[in-house]
């Protein structure tokens, strides 16, 4: 029987491996989808699902994303879109942490919430969604609240952490754990027509500067709520930051905060 390598090289069409071939290899070589994906990318071939990534992300970069490990802390509005976009990009390992279940008031903006899954754990729904989208992605669903005490165990093996929390004190705890674990943190938050993104590397304490004078649980969102079109914009900018950190390319919001005002269509960058 031919080897996996020979099988893949023989069936590549213009450097692409169709899903049907990848699936056949999984079934007939007794491998996981993830293992076959790594084999494809290591041969400088591309699973055909990433064909439209190809001109912006090389095979080598796609392999870097596949080997990337990201923890998404919070699986509500921001977290849902972040998980979706990371899975479609082909980021290989996603840990998603949230203790909550879907409620009716999530339906206005939370991507994974549906009439049919109200009451179900958000992270379990997210994991099911990722498997439907991209079976090569390993998703770890943790139905637990992120805290200063359990945080290290949840994130210490990842390359980047995405902040998708809805509480300022929890965010500060997350920033502290990232600092202790020496892991970059991409922060995003939303409220009403407004949102913000920042990227913090160890030693920079950007989140502490952003929230240093906040003693309450929340911010303007407590009065203004959250709108469907603000959440995916902030989530997408967070994902762009995560991708650049995983690839070590481009310019990030390191040491800065980008503030978005979609009511007046003003984007303002400040440097800490």
């Amino acid at each position, binding site marked *: 029987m031919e080897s996996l390598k020979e099988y893949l090289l023989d069936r590549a069409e213009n450097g692409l491996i169709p899903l049907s071939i990848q699936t056949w290899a999984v079934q007939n070589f007794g491998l996981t989808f993830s293992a076959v994906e790594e084999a494809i990318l290591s041969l400088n071939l591309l699973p055909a699902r990433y064909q439209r990534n190809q001109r912006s992300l090389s095979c080598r970069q796609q392999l870097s994303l596949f080997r990337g490990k990201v923890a998404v802390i919070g699986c509500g509005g921001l977290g849902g879109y972040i998980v979706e976009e990371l899975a479609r990009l082909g980021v290989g390992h996603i840990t998603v942490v949230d203790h909550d279940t879907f409620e009716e008031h999530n339906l206005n903006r939370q991507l994974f919430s549906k009439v049919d899954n109200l009451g179900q754990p958000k992270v379990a729904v997210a994991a099911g969604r990722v498997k439907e989208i991209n079976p090569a992605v390993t998703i770890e669903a943790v139905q637990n609240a992120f805290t200063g005490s359990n945080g290290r165990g949840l994130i210490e093996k990842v390359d980047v952490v995405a902040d998708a929390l*809805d509480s300022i004190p929890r965010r500060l705890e997350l920033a502290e754990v990232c600092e202790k674990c020496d892991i970059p943190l991409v922060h995003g938050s939303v409220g009403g027509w407004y949102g913000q993104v920042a990227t913090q590397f160890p030693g920079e304490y950007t989140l502490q500067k952003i929230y240093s004078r906040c003693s309450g649980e929340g911010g303007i969102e407590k009065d203004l709520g959250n709108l469907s079109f603000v959440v995916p914009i902030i989530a997408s900018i967070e994902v762009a930051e995560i991708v650049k950190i995983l690839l070590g390319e481009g310019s990030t919001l390191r040491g800065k905060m980008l503030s978005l005002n979609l009511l007046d269509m003003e984007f303002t960058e400040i440097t800490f």
Partner: protein
Amino acid sequence: MKVTVKLFASLRKDRFAVDDFDYQEGVTVGHILASLNISEEEAAIIFINARHGGPDSPLKEGDLLAIFPPVGGG
């Protein structure tokens, strides 16, 4: 002395986006917040001429004061 005050996000509601004000010498950010009826809790991020500041920061002629509210939803 003239200070330019720029408000961000929801702080603009029923106030303004950017405006120039005349203040007495020695005015601090805290005085300006009080005059605009903005609580210190609402002024999460304070920048003076693109430098991070706080309620106690003094201002001088020509300064640009930027104030952002806390945004914490996810």
